[in-house]
Protein backbone atom coordinates (compact mmCIF):
# COMPACT_ATOMS: atom_id res chain seq x y z
CA UNK A 1 0.00 0.00 0.00
CA UNK A 2 1.31 3.42 -0.90
CA UNK A 3 1.60 6.08 1.75
CA UNK A 4 -0.75 8.45 -0.02
CA UNK A 5 -3.53 5.84 0.11
CA UNK A 6 -3.28 5.67 3.88
CA UNK A 7 -5.84 8.37 4.74
CA UNK A 8 -8.42 6.94 2.35
CA UNK A 9 -7.93 3.43 3.73
CA UNK A 10 -8.11 4.65 7.31
CA UNK A 11 -11.22 6.66 6.53
CA UNK A 12 -13.18 3.89 4.87
CA UNK A 13 -12.06 1.17 7.24
CA UNK A 14 -12.94 3.16 10.38
CA UNK A 15 -16.36 3.99 8.96
CA UNK A 16 -16.88 0.31 8.08
CA UNK A 17 -15.91 -0.78 11.61
CA UNK A 18 -18.18 1.84 13.16
CA UNK A 19 -21.12 0.92 10.91
CA UNK A 20 -20.63 -2.80 11.54
CA UNK A 21 -20.54 -2.22 15.29
CA UNK A 22 -23.68 -0.06 15.23
CA UNK A 23 -25.51 -2.54 12.98
CA UNK A 24 -24.63 -5.62 15.02
CA UNK A 25 -24.72 -4.24 18.58
CA UNK A 26 -28.52 -4.58 19.12
CA UNK A 27 -28.44 -8.14 17.71
CA UNK A 28 -25.63 -9.03 20.11
CA UNK A 29 -27.89 -8.07 22.98
CA UNK A 30 -26.43 -4.62 23.76
CA UNK A 31 -28.77 -1.98 25.11
CA UNK A 32 -30.18 -0.03 22.20
CA UNK A 33 -30.61 3.39 23.78
CA UNK A 34 -26.91 4.34 24.20
CA UNK A 35 -26.20 3.48 20.57
CA UNK A 36 -29.33 5.29 19.42
CA UNK A 37 -28.15 8.43 21.22
CA UNK A 38 -24.64 8.05 19.78
CA UNK A 39 -26.10 7.80 16.27
CA UNK A 40 -28.35 10.77 16.96
CA UNK A 41 -25.37 12.86 18.05
CA UNK A 42 -23.46 11.87 14.90
CA UNK A 43 -26.35 12.61 12.56
CA UNK A 44 -27.03 15.99 14.20
CA UNK A 45 -23.34 16.90 14.05
CA UNK A 46 -23.28 15.97 10.34
CA UNK A 47 -26.33 18.19 9.85
CA UNK A 48 -24.77 21.12 11.75
CA UNK A 49 -21.51 20.62 9.84
CA UNK A 50 -23.22 21.16 6.46
CA UNK A 51 -24.24 24.72 7.27
CA UNK A 52 -21.53 25.67 9.78
CA UNK A 53 -18.58 23.65 8.45
CA UNK A 54 -18.89 24.16 4.71
CA UNK A 55 -21.04 27.28 4.21
CA UNK A 56 -19.69 28.63 7.52
CA UNK A 57 -22.92 30.14 8.80
CA UNK A 58 -23.61 29.20 12.43
CA UNK A 59 -27.08 27.94 13.19
CA UNK A 60 -27.17 28.28 17.00
CA UNK A 61 -30.77 27.22 17.22
CA UNK A 62 -30.28 24.15 15.03
CA UNK A 63 -32.19 22.10 17.60
CA UNK A 64 -35.30 23.92 16.31
CA UNK A 65 -35.29 21.66 13.24
CA UNK A 66 -34.87 18.58 15.39
CA UNK A 67 -37.87 19.73 17.44
CA UNK A 68 -39.94 20.61 14.39
CA UNK A 69 -39.22 17.18 12.87
CA UNK A 70 -40.25 15.49 16.10
CA UNK A 71 -43.42 17.56 16.42
CA UNK A 72 -44.56 17.20 12.81
CA UNK A 73 -44.02 13.44 13.08
CA UNK A 74 -45.88 13.28 16.39
CA UNK A 75 -48.85 15.32 15.18
CA UNK A 76 -49.19 13.22 12.00
CA UNK A 77 -49.08 9.97 13.96
CA UNK A 78 -51.53 11.37 16.49
CA UNK A 79 -54.07 12.99 14.16
CA UNK A 80 -53.85 10.83 11.03
CA UNK A 81 -52.34 7.56 12.24
CA UNK A 82 -50.02 7.32 9.22
CA UNK A 83 -47.08 4.85 9.26
CA UNK A 84 -44.21 6.26 11.37
CA UNK A 85 -41.58 6.18 8.61
CA UNK A 86 -43.76 8.31 6.33
CA UNK A 87 -44.45 10.74 9.19
CA UNK A 88 -40.72 11.03 9.87
CA UNK A 89 -40.13 11.92 6.23
CA UNK A 90 -42.82 14.61 6.35
CA UNK A 91 -41.21 15.82 9.60
CA UNK A 92 -37.99 16.34 7.66
CA UNK A 93 -39.91 18.26 4.99
CA UNK A 94 -41.51 20.43 7.71
CA UNK A 95 -38.08 21.31 9.09
CA UNK A 96 -36.93 22.17 5.55
CA UNK A 97 -39.85 24.56 5.10
CA UNK A 98 -39.08 26.24 8.43
CA UNK A 99 -35.49 26.69 7.24
CA UNK A 100 -36.82 28.33 4.08
CA UNK A 101 -38.94 30.80 6.09
CA UNK A 102 -36.07 31.78 8.40
CA UNK A 103 -33.44 31.61 5.67
CA UNK A 104 -35.03 33.93 3.12
CA UNK A 105 -34.92 37.10 5.27
CA UNK A 106 -31.71 36.30 7.16
CA UNK A 107 -29.38 34.66 4.65
CA UNK A 108 -29.25 37.87 2.61
CA UNK A 109 -27.51 39.43 5.61
CA UNK A 110 -24.34 38.68 7.50
CA UNK A 111 -24.03 35.48 9.50
CA UNK A 112 -24.79 37.10 12.84
CA UNK A 113 -28.39 37.89 11.95
CA UNK A 114 -28.82 34.35 10.77
CA UNK A 115 -27.27 32.88 13.93
CA UNK A 116 -29.54 34.81 16.28
CA UNK A 117 -32.64 34.33 14.13
CA UNK A 118 -32.24 30.56 14.49
CA UNK A 119 -32.23 30.87 18.31
CA UNK A 120 -35.25 33.14 18.10
CA UNK A 121 -37.00 30.60 15.86
CA UNK A 122 -36.37 27.89 18.42
CA UNK A 123 -37.75 29.96 21.29
CA UNK A 124 -40.72 31.15 19.25
CA UNK A 125 -41.78 27.66 18.21
CA UNK A 126 -41.36 26.33 21.74
CA UNK A 127 -43.38 29.33 23.00
CA UNK A 128 -46.07 28.82 20.35
CA UNK A 129 -46.53 25.15 21.27
CA UNK A 130 -46.99 26.15 24.91
CA UNK A 131 -49.46 28.90 23.98
CA UNK A 132 -51.55 26.87 21.50
CA UNK A 133 -54.48 24.87 22.90
CA UNK A 134 -53.53 21.33 23.99
CA UNK A 135 -55.70 19.87 21.24
CA UNK A 136 -53.44 21.35 18.52
CA UNK A 137 -49.92 20.39 19.61
CA UNK A 138 -50.28 18.85 23.05
CA UNK A 139 -49.22 21.98 24.98
CA UNK A 140 -46.86 21.49 27.88
CA UNK A 141 -47.99 17.88 28.37
CA UNK A 142 -46.47 16.85 25.09
CA UNK A 143 -47.68 14.11 22.76
CA UNK A 144 -47.38 10.46 23.85
CA UNK A 145 -48.00 7.82 21.16
CA UNK A 146 -46.97 4.53 22.76
CA UNK A 147 -48.71 2.47 20.03
CA UNK A 148 -45.90 3.09 17.51
CA UNK A 149 -43.23 1.71 19.88
CA UNK A 150 -40.68 -0.13 17.71
CA UNK A 151 -37.16 0.36 19.08
CA UNK A 152 -35.36 -1.90 16.60
CA UNK A 153 -37.11 -0.52 13.52
CA UNK A 154 -36.52 3.08 14.51
CA UNK A 155 -32.91 2.35 15.46
CA UNK A 156 -32.13 0.81 12.09
CA UNK A 157 -34.01 3.60 10.33
CA UNK A 158 -31.75 6.14 12.07
CA UNK A 159 -28.69 4.07 11.19
CA UNK A 160 -29.86 4.06 7.57
CA UNK A 161 -30.41 7.84 7.59
CA UNK A 162 -26.99 8.47 9.12
CA UNK A 163 -25.18 6.26 6.60
CA UNK A 164 -27.25 7.82 3.83
CA UNK A 165 -26.27 11.30 5.03
CA UNK A 166 -22.59 10.30 5.04
CA UNK A 167 -22.80 8.96 1.49
CA UNK A 168 -24.61 12.08 0.31
CA UNK A 169 -22.03 14.31 2.04
CA UNK A 170 -19.18 12.29 0.52
CA UNK A 171 -20.42 13.01 -2.99
CA UNK A 172 -21.77 16.47 -2.21
CA UNK A 173 -18.54 18.03 -0.92
CA UNK A 174 -16.64 17.24 -4.09
CA UNK A 175 -19.54 18.10 -6.43
CA UNK A 176 -20.02 21.52 -8.05
CA UNK A 177 -22.60 22.38 -5.40
CA UNK A 178 -20.21 21.37 -2.64
CA UNK A 179 -17.53 23.57 -4.18
CA UNK A 180 -20.00 26.44 -4.16
CA UNK A 181 -20.71 25.80 -0.45
CA UNK A 182 -17.02 25.81 0.33
CA UNK A 183 -16.24 28.87 -1.78
CA UNK A 184 -18.87 30.82 0.21
CA UNK A 185 -17.30 29.50 3.39
CA UNK A 186 -13.84 30.63 2.27
CA UNK A 187 -14.76 34.07 0.95
CA UNK A 188 -18.33 35.03 0.29
CA UNK A 189 -17.55 38.23 -1.63
CA UNK A 190 -15.19 36.43 -3.96
CA UNK A 191 -17.75 33.66 -4.48
CA UNK A 192 -20.36 36.25 -5.33
CA UNK A 193 -17.95 38.00 -7.71
CA UNK A 194 -17.38 34.66 -9.47
CA UNK A 195 -21.06 34.64 -10.33
CA UNK A 196 -22.34 32.29 -7.64
CA UNK A 197 -25.89 33.02 -6.47
CA UNK A 198 -24.72 33.07 -2.87
CA UNK A 199 -28.14 33.56 -1.27
CA UNK A 200 -29.61 30.65 -3.20
CA UNK A 201 -26.68 28.35 -2.44
CA UNK A 202 -26.71 29.25 1.27
CA UNK A 203 -30.45 28.63 1.38
CA UNK A 204 -30.01 25.22 -0.26
CA UNK A 205 -27.27 24.24 2.19
CA UNK A 206 -29.42 25.37 5.10
CA UNK A 207 -32.41 23.41 3.83
CA UNK A 208 -30.41 20.19 3.34
CA UNK A 209 -29.02 20.62 6.83
CA UNK A 210 -32.46 21.27 8.33
CA UNK A 211 -33.96 18.28 6.47
CA UNK A 212 -31.45 15.94 8.09
CA UNK A 213 -32.01 17.44 11.56
CA UNK A 214 -35.77 17.14 11.04
CA UNK A 215 -35.45 13.45 10.12
CA UNK A 216 -33.39 12.83 13.26
CA UNK A 217 -36.04 14.60 15.37
CA UNK A 218 -38.74 12.42 13.82
CA UNK A 219 -36.69 9.28 14.50
CA UNK A 220 -36.25 10.37 18.08
CA UNK A 221 -40.02 10.63 18.45
CA UNK A 222 -40.47 7.22 16.84
CA UNK A 223 -37.92 5.68 19.20
CA UNK A 224 -39.14 7.34 22.42
CA UNK A 225 -42.82 7.59 21.30
CA UNK A 226 -43.05 10.87 23.22
CA UNK A 227 -42.30 14.52 22.62
CA UNK A 228 -42.70 17.59 24.82
CA UNK A 229 -41.61 21.16 24.09
CA UNK A 230 -38.95 21.80 26.73
CA UNK A 231 -36.78 18.79 25.87
CA UNK A 232 -37.46 18.81 22.11
CA UNK A 233 -36.36 22.45 21.77
CA UNK A 234 -33.65 22.29 24.43
CA UNK A 235 -30.60 24.35 23.48
CA UNK A 236 -28.49 21.65 25.11
CA UNK A 237 -29.00 19.59 21.94
CA UNK A 238 -27.64 22.47 19.84
CA UNK A 239 -24.65 22.81 22.15
CA UNK A 240 -24.00 19.07 21.90
CA UNK A 241 -23.96 19.01 18.11
CA UNK A 242 -21.85 22.18 17.92
CA UNK A 243 -19.23 20.88 20.33
CA UNK A 244 -19.19 17.52 18.53
CA UNK A 245 -18.66 19.02 15.08
CA UNK A 246 -16.12 21.55 16.35
CA UNK A 247 -14.09 19.00 18.29
CA UNK A 248 -13.95 16.53 15.41
CA UNK A 249 -13.37 19.25 12.86
CA UNK A 250 -15.80 21.67 11.17
CA UNK A 251 -15.74 21.34 7.41
CA UNK A 252 -14.41 17.78 7.40
CA UNK A 253 -16.36 14.64 6.51
CA UNK A 254 -15.02 12.50 9.31
CA UNK A 255 -15.04 15.19 12.03
CA UNK A 256 -18.66 14.78 13.20
CA UNK A 257 -18.18 11.02 13.62
CA UNK A 258 -14.90 11.40 15.47
CA UNK A 259 -16.33 14.16 17.67
CA UNK A 260 -19.35 12.02 18.60
CA UNK A 261 -17.23 8.96 19.41
CA UNK A 262 -15.10 11.10 21.76
CA UNK A 263 -17.83 13.26 23.31
CA UNK A 264 -20.55 10.68 23.78
CA UNK A 265 -18.75 8.65 26.49
CA UNK A 266 -17.78 11.91 28.24
CA UNK A 267 -21.44 12.90 28.19
CA UNK A 268 -22.45 9.53 29.63
CA UNK A 269 -20.06 9.89 32.53
CA UNK A 270 -20.63 13.57 33.30
CA UNK A 271 -24.22 14.20 32.26
CA UNK A 272 -25.65 11.60 34.60
CA UNK A 273 -24.05 12.89 37.77
CA UNK A 274 -22.91 16.46 37.02
CA UNK A 275 -25.03 17.98 34.22
CA UNK A 276 -23.88 21.57 34.88
CA UNK A 277 -20.25 20.51 34.84
CA UNK A 278 -20.79 18.74 31.53
CA UNK A 279 -22.27 21.82 29.88
CA UNK A 280 -19.57 24.00 31.45
CA UNK A 281 -16.94 21.73 29.91
CA UNK A 282 -18.68 21.88 26.52
CA UNK A 283 -18.91 25.68 26.69
CA UNK A 284 -15.24 26.02 27.55
CA UNK A 285 -14.34 23.45 24.86
CA UNK A 286 -16.27 25.39 22.21
CA UNK A 287 -14.62 28.69 23.21
CA UNK A 288 -11.10 27.28 23.37
CA UNK A 289 -11.30 25.08 20.28
CA UNK A 290 -12.70 27.78 18.03
CA UNK A 291 -9.89 30.19 18.96
CA UNK A 292 -6.92 27.84 19.16
CA UNK A 293 -7.91 24.87 16.94
CA UNK A 294 -10.70 26.16 14.69
CA UNK A 295 -10.62 23.13 12.37
CA UNK A 296 -10.76 20.59 15.19
CA UNK A 297 -8.87 17.33 15.45
CA UNK A 298 -9.24 16.44 11.77
CA UNK A 299 -8.03 19.90 10.75
CA UNK A 300 -5.01 19.47 13.02
CA UNK A 301 -4.20 16.07 11.51
CA UNK A 302 -4.59 17.50 8.03
CA UNK A 303 -2.19 20.34 8.74
CA UNK A 304 0.42 18.04 10.33
CA UNK A 305 0.48 15.13 7.90
CA UNK A 306 0.89 16.00 4.27
CA UNK A 307 -0.76 12.76 3.07
CA UNK A 308 -4.06 13.96 4.47
CA UNK A 309 -4.00 17.31 2.71
CA UNK A 310 -5.11 16.20 -0.72
CA UNK A 311 -7.93 14.03 0.54
CA UNK A 312 -10.92 15.86 1.92
CA UNK A 313 -11.81 13.91 5.03
Amino acid at each position, binding site marked *: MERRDLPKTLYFSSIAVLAAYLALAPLAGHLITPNFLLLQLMALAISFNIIAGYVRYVSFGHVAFFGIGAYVTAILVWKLGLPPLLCVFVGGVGATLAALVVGIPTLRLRGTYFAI*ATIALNEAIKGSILILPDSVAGGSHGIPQPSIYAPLASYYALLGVTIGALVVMHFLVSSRMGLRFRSIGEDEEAASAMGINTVGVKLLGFMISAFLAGLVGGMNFWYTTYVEPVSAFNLRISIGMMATALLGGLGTLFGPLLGAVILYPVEQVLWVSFPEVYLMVL*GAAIAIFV*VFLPRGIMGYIRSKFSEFRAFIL
Partner: protein
Amino acid sequence: MDVTILLQTILSGMLQGGLYGLIALGLGLIWGVMKVVNIAHGEFLMLGAFMTYFLFNPFGLNPFLSALITGPAFFLIGLVIYKYLVRRTVGAPELISLLLTFGISIFILNAAILAWTPDIRAVGYALPSVSFSGLIVPLSRLYAFIAAILLTISFFIFLSKTYLGKAIKALTQNYDAAHLVGIDTDRVSMISFGLGLAFAATAGSINTVANPALTPMIGYLYILKAFAIVVLGGVGKPFGALAGGFLLALAESLGTVYWHAEASVVIAFLVLLLTLFLRPSGLLGRKE
Protein backbone atom coordinates in the same frame (compact mmCIF):
# COMPACT_ATOMS: atom_id res chain seq x y z
CA MET B 1 -61.78 48.60 25.16
CA ASP B 2 -60.93 49.98 28.56
CA VAL B 3 -58.84 53.12 28.07
CA THR B 4 -57.21 52.93 31.51
CA ILE B 5 -55.91 49.43 30.83
CA LEU B 6 -54.60 50.53 27.44
CA LEU B 7 -52.85 53.58 28.94
CA GLN B 8 -51.46 51.51 31.80
CA THR B 9 -50.14 48.95 29.30
CA ILE B 10 -48.46 51.66 27.23
CA LEU B 11 -47.00 53.25 30.37
CA SER B 12 -45.55 49.93 31.56
CA GLY B 13 -44.15 49.36 28.10
CA MET B 14 -42.46 52.79 28.06
CA LEU B 15 -40.93 52.26 31.52
CA GLN B 16 -39.58 48.87 30.45
CA GLY B 17 -38.42 50.30 27.11
CA GLY B 18 -35.91 52.67 28.71
CA LEU B 19 -34.32 49.72 30.48
CA TYR B 20 -34.31 47.64 27.30
CA GLY B 21 -32.38 50.44 25.61
CA LEU B 22 -29.71 50.29 28.33
CA ILE B 23 -29.63 46.49 28.15
CA ALA B 24 -28.92 46.64 24.42
CA LEU B 25 -26.42 49.52 24.60
CA GLY B 26 -23.31 47.48 25.34
CA LEU B 27 -24.18 44.82 22.77
CA GLY B 28 -24.53 47.46 20.05
CA LEU B 29 -21.30 49.19 21.11
CA ILE B 30 -19.13 46.06 20.78
CA TRP B 31 -20.95 44.97 17.64
CA GLY B 32 -20.40 48.36 16.00
CA VAL B 33 -16.73 48.76 16.90
CA MET B 34 -15.29 45.30 16.23
CA LYS B 35 -18.12 43.55 14.34
CA VAL B 36 -18.30 40.98 17.13
CA VAL B 37 -21.74 40.10 18.45
CA ASN B 38 -21.21 39.19 22.05
CA ILE B 39 -23.57 36.26 22.60
CA ALA B 40 -22.50 36.22 26.26
CA HIS B 41 -23.95 39.73 26.76
CA GLY B 42 -26.98 38.40 28.61
CA GLU B 43 -24.75 36.30 30.90
CA PHE B 44 -22.71 39.36 31.87
CA LEU B 45 -25.96 41.15 32.63
CA MET B 46 -26.90 38.20 34.83
CA LEU B 47 -23.52 38.32 36.60
CA GLY B 48 -23.98 42.05 37.24
CA ALA B 49 -27.40 41.34 38.71
CA PHE B 50 -25.99 38.59 40.96
CA MET B 51 -23.19 40.88 42.14
CA THR B 52 -25.85 43.44 43.05
CA TYR B 53 -27.77 40.74 44.89
CA PHE B 54 -24.74 39.75 46.96
CA LEU B 55 -23.91 43.39 47.69
CA PHE B 56 -27.47 44.03 48.79
CA ASN B 57 -28.07 40.96 50.87
CA PRO B 58 -25.35 40.99 53.46
CA PHE B 59 -24.39 44.68 53.10
CA GLY B 60 -27.68 46.34 52.16
CA LEU B 61 -26.08 48.33 49.38
CA ASN B 62 -28.61 50.22 47.26
CA PRO B 63 -28.80 48.56 43.79
CA PHE B 64 -28.38 51.91 42.05
CA LEU B 65 -25.14 52.50 43.97
CA SER B 66 -23.93 48.95 43.35
CA ALA B 67 -23.88 49.83 39.64
CA LEU B 68 -20.90 52.00 40.57
CA ILE B 69 -19.09 48.81 41.61
CA THR B 70 -20.37 46.32 39.01
CA GLY B 71 -19.69 48.67 36.10
CA PRO B 72 -15.95 49.21 36.80
CA ALA B 73 -15.48 45.57 37.85
CA PHE B 74 -16.84 44.27 34.55
CA PHE B 75 -14.92 46.92 32.64
CA LEU B 76 -11.72 45.30 33.94
CA ILE B 77 -13.01 41.78 33.25
CA GLY B 78 -13.84 42.91 29.71
CA LEU B 79 -10.28 44.16 29.17
CA VAL B 80 -8.90 40.76 30.18
CA ILE B 81 -11.35 38.78 28.03
CA TYR B 82 -10.58 41.01 25.07
CA LYS B 83 -6.84 40.71 25.53
CA TYR B 84 -6.69 36.92 25.73
CA LEU B 85 -9.64 35.72 23.65
CA VAL B 86 -11.68 38.23 21.68
CA ARG B 87 -8.69 40.03 20.15
CA ARG B 88 -7.77 36.86 18.26
CA THR B 89 -11.17 36.80 16.57
CA VAL B 90 -11.39 40.44 15.43
CA GLY B 91 -11.22 40.43 11.65
CA ALA B 92 -11.53 36.63 11.49
CA PRO B 93 -14.66 35.05 9.94
CA GLU B 94 -17.80 35.81 11.96
CA LEU B 95 -18.25 32.15 12.76
CA ILE B 96 -15.20 32.27 15.02
CA SER B 97 -16.32 35.13 17.27
CA LEU B 98 -19.90 33.86 17.35
CA LEU B 99 -18.82 30.41 18.54
CA LEU B 100 -16.31 31.92 20.99
CA THR B 101 -18.82 34.15 22.73
CA PHE B 102 -21.44 31.39 22.59
CA GLY B 103 -19.01 29.06 24.34
CA ILE B 104 -18.29 31.74 26.95
CA SER B 105 -22.01 32.20 27.54
CA ILE B 106 -22.61 28.45 28.04
CA PHE B 107 -19.65 28.32 30.40
CA ILE B 108 -20.81 31.28 32.53
CA LEU B 109 -24.42 30.13 32.61
CA ASN B 110 -23.60 26.64 33.86
CA ALA B 111 -20.94 27.84 36.27
CA ALA B 112 -23.56 30.18 37.73
CA ILE B 113 -26.11 27.36 38.04
CA LEU B 114 -23.48 25.25 39.75
CA ALA B 115 -22.54 28.03 42.16
CA TRP B 116 -25.93 29.54 42.91
CA THR B 117 -28.47 26.81 41.94
CA PRO B 118 -31.28 27.57 39.45
CA ASP B 119 -33.63 28.74 42.23
CA ILE B 120 -35.34 32.09 41.88
CA ARG B 121 -34.19 34.73 44.33
CA ALA B 122 -34.97 38.41 44.58
CA VAL B 123 -33.11 41.55 45.54
CA GLY B 124 -35.42 42.71 48.31
CA TYR B 125 -35.18 46.38 47.43
CA ALA B 126 -38.74 47.64 47.19
CA LEU B 127 -40.23 51.08 46.72
CA PRO B 128 -43.88 52.14 46.93
CA SER B 129 -46.06 52.91 43.93
CA VAL B 130 -47.75 56.20 43.25
CA SER B 131 -50.97 56.56 41.34
CA PHE B 132 -52.45 59.51 39.55
CA SER B 133 -55.76 59.61 37.67
CA GLY B 134 -56.11 55.83 37.80
CA LEU B 135 -52.63 55.04 36.43
CA ILE B 136 -50.21 53.22 38.70
CA VAL B 137 -46.53 54.08 38.52
CA PRO B 138 -44.24 51.81 40.55
CA LEU B 139 -41.48 54.10 41.78
CA SER B 140 -38.88 51.33 41.45
CA ARG B 141 -39.59 51.09 37.73
CA LEU B 142 -39.69 54.86 37.36
CA TYR B 143 -36.30 55.35 39.02
CA ALA B 144 -34.79 52.49 37.01
CA PHE B 145 -36.19 54.12 33.89
CA ILE B 146 -34.68 57.50 34.80
CA ALA B 147 -31.31 55.93 35.57
CA ALA B 148 -31.32 54.10 32.23
CA ILE B 149 -32.19 57.24 30.28
CA LEU B 150 -29.51 59.28 32.09
CA LEU B 151 -26.88 56.64 31.35
CA THR B 152 -27.86 56.51 27.68
CA ILE B 153 -27.68 60.31 27.40
CA SER B 154 -24.32 60.51 29.13
CA PHE B 155 -22.97 57.81 26.83
CA PHE B 156 -24.19 59.80 23.84
CA ILE B 157 -22.41 62.91 25.15
CA PHE B 158 -19.26 60.86 25.79
CA LEU B 159 -19.34 59.62 22.18
CA SER B 160 -19.73 63.08 20.68
CA LYS B 161 -17.54 65.19 22.99
CA THR B 162 -14.46 63.21 24.02
CA TYR B 163 -11.52 62.05 21.92
CA LEU B 164 -12.05 58.43 22.96
CA GLY B 165 -15.75 58.63 22.15
CA LYS B 166 -15.02 60.05 18.71
CA ALA B 167 -12.48 57.30 18.14
CA ILE B 168 -15.12 54.71 19.04
CA LYS B 169 -17.50 56.30 16.54
CA ALA B 170 -14.77 56.31 13.90
CA LEU B 171 -14.14 52.59 14.39
CA THR B 172 -17.85 51.92 14.18
CA GLN B 173 -18.03 53.73 10.86
CA ASN B 174 -14.91 52.28 9.28
CA TYR B 175 -12.40 50.20 11.20
CA ASP B 176 -9.68 50.23 8.53
CA ALA B 177 -9.98 53.94 7.81
CA ALA B 178 -9.78 54.67 11.54
CA HIS B 179 -6.57 52.66 11.65
CA LEU B 180 -5.19 54.63 8.69
CA VAL B 181 -5.76 58.02 10.30
CA GLY B 182 -3.69 56.93 13.28
CA ILE B 183 -6.22 55.70 15.81
CA ASP B 184 -4.88 52.85 17.95
CA THR B 185 -7.68 50.50 16.89
CA ASP B 186 -6.58 47.66 19.14
CA ARG B 187 -6.61 49.86 22.25
CA VAL B 188 -9.93 51.50 21.38
CA SER B 189 -11.43 48.05 20.71
CA MET B 190 -10.19 46.80 24.07
CA ILE B 191 -11.72 49.78 25.88
CA SER B 192 -14.96 49.38 23.91
CA PHE B 193 -15.19 45.73 24.87
CA GLY B 194 -14.65 46.69 28.52
CA LEU B 195 -17.30 49.41 28.22
CA GLY B 196 -19.69 46.97 26.59
CA LEU B 197 -19.42 44.55 29.50
CA ALA B 198 -19.62 47.43 31.97
CA PHE B 199 -22.91 48.50 30.40
CA ALA B 200 -24.18 44.91 30.48
CA ALA B 201 -23.38 44.61 34.20
CA THR B 202 -24.76 48.07 35.00
CA ALA B 203 -27.96 47.21 33.18
CA GLY B 204 -28.07 44.02 35.24
CA SER B 205 -27.74 46.01 38.47
CA ILE B 206 -30.42 48.53 37.59
CA ASN B 207 -32.68 45.83 36.18
CA THR B 208 -32.84 44.15 39.60
CA VAL B 209 -34.81 47.17 40.83
CA ALA B 210 -37.46 46.94 38.13
CA ASN B 211 -37.48 43.15 37.63
CA PRO B 212 -36.32 41.68 40.94
CA ALA B 213 -36.68 37.96 40.13
CA LEU B 214 -33.20 36.59 39.54
CA THR B 215 -31.94 33.22 38.30
CA PRO B 216 -28.79 32.30 36.36
CA MET B 217 -31.04 31.71 33.34
CA ILE B 218 -32.24 35.31 32.86
CA GLY B 219 -29.37 36.23 30.54
CA TYR B 220 -30.51 33.89 27.82
CA LEU B 221 -33.74 35.77 27.21
CA TYR B 222 -32.06 39.15 27.27
CA ILE B 223 -29.59 38.31 24.50
CA LEU B 224 -32.49 37.65 22.13
CA LYS B 225 -34.22 40.84 23.13
CA ALA B 226 -31.05 42.93 23.09
CA PHE B 227 -30.26 41.65 19.63
CA ALA B 228 -33.74 42.46 18.33
CA ILE B 229 -33.41 45.96 19.85
CA VAL B 230 -30.04 46.64 18.22
CA VAL B 231 -31.36 45.44 14.88
CA LEU B 232 -34.42 47.68 15.27
CA GLY B 233 -32.45 50.75 16.25
CA GLY B 234 -29.36 50.30 14.08
CA VAL B 235 -25.93 49.14 15.23
CA GLY B 236 -23.78 51.43 17.38
CA LYS B 237 -26.32 54.19 18.03
CA PRO B 238 -27.25 54.93 21.68
CA PHE B 239 -30.53 56.62 20.81
CA GLY B 240 -31.26 53.94 18.24
CA ALA B 241 -31.00 51.39 21.05
CA LEU B 242 -33.37 53.49 23.13
CA ALA B 243 -35.90 53.75 20.27
CA GLY B 244 -35.61 50.01 19.59
CA GLY B 245 -36.05 49.33 23.30
CA PHE B 246 -39.25 51.38 23.43
CA LEU B 247 -40.64 49.68 20.34
CA LEU B 248 -39.95 46.15 21.53
CA ALA B 249 -41.20 46.82 25.07
CA LEU B 250 -44.40 48.39 23.75
CA ALA B 251 -45.02 45.48 21.38
CA GLU B 252 -44.39 43.06 24.25
CA SER B 253 -46.59 44.76 26.81
CA LEU B 254 -49.47 45.21 24.34
CA GLY B 255 -49.05 41.62 23.16
CA THR B 256 -48.97 40.09 26.64
CA VAL B 257 -52.07 42.03 27.74
CA TYR B 258 -54.18 41.66 24.61
CA TRP B 259 -52.91 38.37 23.16
CA HIS B 260 -51.33 35.93 25.59
CA ALA B 261 -49.39 36.29 28.84
CA GLU B 262 -46.56 34.05 27.60
CA ALA B 263 -46.27 35.68 24.19
CA SER B 264 -43.30 38.00 24.76
CA VAL B 265 -40.66 35.71 23.20
CA VAL B 266 -42.87 34.99 20.19
CA ILE B 267 -43.36 38.74 19.75
CA ALA B 268 -39.63 39.46 20.00
CA PHE B 269 -39.02 36.85 17.31
CA LEU B 270 -41.70 38.22 15.00
CA VAL B 271 -40.41 41.77 15.46
CA LEU B 272 -36.88 40.62 14.67
CA LEU B 273 -37.82 38.64 11.59
CA LEU B 274 -40.07 41.41 10.23
CA THR B 275 -37.35 44.03 10.74
CA LEU B 276 -34.77 41.88 9.00
CA PHE B 277 -37.19 41.32 6.16
CA LEU B 278 -38.25 44.93 5.68
CA ARG B 279 -35.35 47.08 6.87
CA PRO B 280 -32.21 45.07 7.65
CA SER B 281 -30.21 48.20 8.48
CA GLY B 282 -32.65 49.08 11.28
CA LEU B 283 -35.49 51.57 11.49
CA LEU B 284 -33.13 54.50 12.10
CA GLY B 285 -30.26 53.08 10.08
CA ARG B 286 -29.30 54.19 6.60
CA LYS B 287 -29.73 51.81 3.70
CA GLU B 288 -26.44 50.03 3.02
